[in-house]
């Protein structure tokens, strides 16, 4: 890959652009932000195209020793690659979504978003434990500002809740990291992924990391910050929150908890499965009764993320790959759903579902996009939602059939709450005159939704593009987990084949057979 520091460049561009945004007019800030994110998107695509599938595990590596142990080390494998591409893909869309709706302190807003992008890419690209920690935790700061300054009515409460939760987890994680570095004598993540910690220590380390990742996912019952954060965040904030920030928890599991503590991961499978099952059923039911459209989608996110965690803790290739695809798919689909909410929120300034209705009549283009993303959220085959959900559940089935049964009820409940939502918003009669007067998508909004729609279908029909880069990394992880993987409950046992075919004609009639032949 040559020595060109493309990852550093991807960090530097939004960083510089963000600083520039602080000092210019609103209009210029928007343009700068859009340009910077588009350049990063272009670089992301370059990254993807030049990624050597089947080549070295870690590519585009850069390393500068700073001081003893601590180094500025970047590098990505297929898993990180896909998440970086997802981040760079969503960023320009977020800038577009904020184009007209943000009018106050635009420069700072754009700066916050660009800083966000730096930190997100940083999280996925960091190869040094402490570098990762900085990116991981600092990522909350711009998000906190975005909710707290540009959010809705109850933004203070929401940002406070968001903070409190994440703070708790991260302190524990930091302590665990310190212990690990001390034990292994290195801060290098790839090296730590190969290091075998003593099983007794793994338990505590795993729990410390779990505290942080479970909140980020979020898993039930530490999810209550998410609905509030989503409801209060501006549209683009929600998109990034659902699209990328929630993926940091899953990425954490796949990068740290599973490879570094395989034994502990196996030890705690029932904790993860139990919480995931509870999440699927409980948050889906909660989504069913929501009157606030953003809350509904937020709760559905929790249910979807539970499919990620069961997939990850299925301990097999299908589960891991499925979990990754669910993460990517959810990043696109829930992001798109929040954009869809943003489109109508910008027109009517309410998130109350009952204020809408019959939008398919006056906003037919919008209705088509919204339907596509609804279906993708439900997991209709042919969309990205299905591939991930199917693989993930196929993976967990090999581990436990009960967990699969409970988690698969998500496809019923999901259809229930999403279609009920779609009915109340897009179908039915136009009962509110102001909603009935809303104009259809403008070109800017169309440009936000169309690329996501294309990506959703692409991932649904030809997911190979997304599976191929991570195949080798997942296989390596699977191999590492093999020694700890719990036995499945299927336990197929051969038996004596039943000699007769099920429908061999019963003996009683055999006697009559002869006569029958004659009668014919």
């Amino acid at each position, binding site marked *: 890959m040559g020595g060109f520091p493309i990852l550093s460049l991807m960090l530097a561009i939004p960083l510089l652009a963000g600083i520039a945004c602080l000092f210019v007019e609103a209009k210029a800030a928007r343009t700068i932000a859009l340009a910077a994110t588009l350049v990063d998107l272009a670089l992301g695509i370059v990254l993807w195209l030049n990624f050597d599938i089947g080549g070295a595990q870690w590519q585009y590596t850069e390393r500068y020793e700073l001081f003893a142990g601590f180094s500025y080390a970047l590098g990505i494998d297929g898993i990180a690659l896909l998440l970086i591409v997802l981040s760079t893909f969503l960023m320009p869309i977020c800038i577009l979504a904020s184009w007209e709706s943000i009018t106050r302190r635009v420069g700072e807003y754009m700066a916050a978003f660009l800083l966000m992008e730096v930190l997100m890419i940083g999280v996925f690209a960091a190869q040094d434990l402490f570098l990762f920690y*900085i990116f991981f935790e600092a990522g909350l700061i711009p998000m906190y500002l975005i909710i707290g300054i540009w959010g809705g009515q109850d933004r203070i*409460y929401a940002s406070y809740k968001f903070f409190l939760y994440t703070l708790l987890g991260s302190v524990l994680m930091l302590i665990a990291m310190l212990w690990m570095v001390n034990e292994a004598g290195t801060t290098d993540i790839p090296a730590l992924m190969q290091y075998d910690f003593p099983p007794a220590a793994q338990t505590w380390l795993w729990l410390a990391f779990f505290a942080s990742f479970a909140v980020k996912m979020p898993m039930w019952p530490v999810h209550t910050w998410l609905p509030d954060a989503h409801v209060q965040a501006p549209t683009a904030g929600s998109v990034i929150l659902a699209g990328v920030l929630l993926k940091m928890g899953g990425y954490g599991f796949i990068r740290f908890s599973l490879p570094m503590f395989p034994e502990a991961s196996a030890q705690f499978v029932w904790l993860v499965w139990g919480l995931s099952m509870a999440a699927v059923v409980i948050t889906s039911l909660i989504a069913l009764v929501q009157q606030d459209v953003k809350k509904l989608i937020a709760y559905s996110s929790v249910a979807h993320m539970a499919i990620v965690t069961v997939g990850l803790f299925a301990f097999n290739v299908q589960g891991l790959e499925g979990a990754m695809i669910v993460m990517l798919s959810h990043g696109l689909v829930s992001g798109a759903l929040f954009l869809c909410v943003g489109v109508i929120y910008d027109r009517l300034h309410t998130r109350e579902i009952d204020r809408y209705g019959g939008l398919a009549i006056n906003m037919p283009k919008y209705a088509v996009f919204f339907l596509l993303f609804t279906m993708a959220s439900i997991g209709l085959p042919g969309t990205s939602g299905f591939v991930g959900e199917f693989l993930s559940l196929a993976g967990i089935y090999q581990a436990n059939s009960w967990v699969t049964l409970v988690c698969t009820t998500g496809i019923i409940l999901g259809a229930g709450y999403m279609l009920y939502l779609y009915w109340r918003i897009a179908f039915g009669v136009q009962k509110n005159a102001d909603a009935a007067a809303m104009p259809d998508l403008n070109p800017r909004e169309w440009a936000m939704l169309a690329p996501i729609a294309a990506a959703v279908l692409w991932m649904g029909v030809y997911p190979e593009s997304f599976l191929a880069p991570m195949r080798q990394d997942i*296989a390596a992880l699977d191999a590492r987990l093999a020694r700890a993987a719990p036995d499945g409950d299927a336990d197929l046992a051969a038996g004596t084949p039943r000699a007769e075919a099920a429908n061999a004609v019963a003996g009683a009639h055999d006697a009559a057979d002869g006569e029958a032949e004659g009668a014919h």
Partner: protein
Amino acid sequence: METSILLIVFLPLLAAIVGGLGNRALGNTVVKSLTTGALFVSCALSWPIFLGFVAGTAEAQVVPVLQWVQSGALSFDWALRVDTLTAVMLVVITSVSALVHLYSWGYMEEDPDQPRFFAYLSLFTFAMLMLVTADNLVQMFFGWEGVGLASYLLIGFWFRKPSANKAAIKAFVVNRVGDLGFMLGIFGTFLVFQTTSIPEILEAAPGMSGSSIGFLGMRLQTMDVLCILLFIGAMGKSAQLGLHTWLPDAMEGPTPVSALIHAATMVTAGVFMVCRLSPMFETAPVALALVTFIGAATCFFAATIGTTQWDIKRVIAYSTCSQLGYMFFAAGVGAYGAAMFHLFTHAFFKALLFLGAGSVIHAMHHEQDMRYYGALRKHIPLTFWAMMAGTLAITGVGIYWLHAGFAGFHSKDAILEVAFARGTEMGTFAFWMGAVAALLTSFYSWRLMFLTFWGKPRWAGSEHIRHAVHHGHDDPEDANPPAQEDAGDDAVHHVPSTEQSDGTAGYHPHESPVSMLVPLGVLTVGAVFAGWVFSHAFLDDPAFWGGSIFYNEALIHEMHAVPLWVKLTASFVMLLGLFGAWLAYIRDTSIPGKFVEQFRYVHNFVYRKWYFDELYDLVFVKPAFWFGRQFWKRGDKGLIDRFGPDGAAWVVARGAVVARKVQSGYLYSYALIMLLGLVAAITWVLM
């Protein structure tokens, strides 16, 4: 064949995309021509393939399209499989679909949203074709869900009506319950066979016979578990007992949709699935017994309800449900050929009945309640004769000694005979249930005919008719969706009228336009001849099937050897049903009223559809919402938040000043903790 199968499957998709996205920009005529044209091409390409298999010249083939998913050992691709079984479905789907497209030109004439309707129809056809050409279970599931989507969109086509939305969501969600089983079945199949490829599974299935597997904490026979799980999927899609509740409500959709999706094609997908996997089901005796039982129970249960409904489409919907039951128990006893044969003939006569009903509804200005029909024979004679052919076909009219009869005579009688010939308790149970259901089928079918076409006009009581008379038929209001079809008895209040003594209210029913009559004519030909022409191939010719289904030759021999009384049972009960209907609805029309009076509770039980909807509402729907509210208010807010973040806030700041402090304070303290942590870390490492 390679190019033609690609065209058959993907032309409807192309038409749906272009038509759907082009919509108003292209205009009604362009979109309608495009979609209808595409379907006629598909249809024209399908018949040669089918006839090739009938003649024995064609060979099974798989056309690869695109790689789909490869994840570890689990891999499946997009591919189109064509064998005899697929070919049968191809002609059924493309023929009925093409005719329904054509019919809709007339039927949907006044609708403002025609391009959307035609695009949905074509999209449905594509998904259905993907389902039947699937070479692996996952692609079948793709088609399965695709038709579910199209069905959802078409049932809810008149999306302004709350009842249509409810019905659409109900159809999707109830189907998803079945899909849960289907998905678990696929997962289990992959676990056991390490593949989802249908031919590979079928080949390996006998080897797994007798093995056991752990499932939900139990140890069970592997093949029975897998087949039952897959069959649950089939029950959902084919509206079998327990998961049938969506089908009658699906009549909210426009009538052409009912004919295509809820009679001829989509609902038969479950039967197709069992037949496609027949060698696998043959290794699972318990699963097959369940299939037989569910099929037999459904055919009886749905037929009883059919005898009491007033809505013409609902009668036919329950009839469909019942006929699907026949197909299932035929498959359950091992006569997959007979099941597919009934699927084939049923597609023609049931589509005919639905389209005929649509023509009646069209003539009666959207009135669907048979209580307000009567004496239509003379007013819409062509529709009448088409419906007559459909009725003769579904009731199975034919003469045993000549071996000649309408379509249903060949297929339904074969199913009853084979169930009897099977000789097991379950088979005999199915035979008797089937025989009773045949009696009821004849009764409700003739009841429908007599109420609609005989007797005196009772139109004056219909609000739709009076609306038409008062406002004139071409009133612009007509074009508005609220005036569209009403299913269900609660939607419209019928007020009896005494204005006109002849009961017509001055209304003149009109025969449907040519675009609607041509499909009726073509389907009439099918309803009359399809059974007679193809009986041999479907039932008696293993070479025709070419291994695409499990063919039990011994059983077919038995079938032909059943006693004469068994063979005549179907015809006998058919006459009995006809006589009963004649007695009650022609001879002495006071009989039904007296009957209801006498057996109030029985009638209510049946009329209220055995209270399934009420039961499910009570057990599933209401509790789901109740639990949702509890989990939200009590769980999230009352428990987690109260003792979590809110409690913490209270501890930290205790009062109203929290807000300000939070905003300014936490960020810095957070950054500080991070920084301190890092410093500590570095010092530790350095030491």
